[in-house]
């Protein structure tokens, strides 16, 4: 699978609520050693939902600080993003490009923390 494939998937909670499409992937470099050189890049969570404009402009995850009005606007958009841990994935449907979660929509974390 490629990351471009993953970014086409929609995420559905256990109670059937559509949370949106995968818009980014959070990666932590803490996996097993690769060739004795460096730790593997483990995919920890999927960032789901959010308008694409904020992402394209870099106004997400605190990467761009100003102008303050735009930062305020896009920070609000950012709060709509949801983070889904990979361990919360119940199953993949390749035909419909859907990821089903173990948890229902209320239990999915709503904050983007780094």
């Amino acid at each position: 699978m490629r990351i471009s494939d993953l970014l086409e998937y929609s995420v559905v909670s256990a109670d059937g609520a559509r949370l949106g499409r995968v818009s980014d992937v959070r990666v932590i470099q803490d996996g097993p050693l690769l060739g004795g050189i460096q730790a593997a890049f483990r995919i920890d969570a999927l960032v789901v939902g959010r308008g694409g404009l904020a992402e394209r402009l870099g106004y997400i995850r605190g990467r761009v600080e100003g102008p303050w009005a735009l930062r305020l606007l896009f920070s609000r958009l950012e709060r709509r993003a949801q983070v889904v841990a990979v361990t919360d994935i119940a199953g993949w449907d390749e035909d419909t490009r859907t990821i089903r979660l173990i948890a229902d929509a209320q239990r999915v974390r709503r904050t983007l923390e780094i």
Partner: protein
Amino acid sequence: MSNPTATGRVLHATLDLLDRQLRDRNGKLCGNVDDLEITRDEETGQMFITAILCGPGVLAYRMGRRRLGRWLEEANRRVHDTPTHHEPFERTRIPIELAGQIGPTIELAVDVDDMATHDTERWTLTHIISHIPGNASRAHQ
């Protein structure tokens, strides 16, 4: 839930990896990160980024031109063989362990000649430009 105690470096793939400039072991520019390969462990469910993908067709695939991208990748694979003097890997696929420093640019432990990034230019130089009388350049191969 994600692992809150994880101590490794945290990256966001589309922000920190995709479209980043690549440099080879000699510091030469050698393309951009067009896509990333993900491998999923069926037993544990864990997923890892296992390779950087770049070269002809890869970006087309990512942009939604799946068939065109596959065709370009396959055509390039048929024209340019995998280097035999190097640890075998496909020319469009760079194992992630060969990626050193990741920042504004990503430094790779490979030579640009072993990558597919400039294959089209290389082919044109070898098969067309070098045969034109009076050309000042010589083909690499």
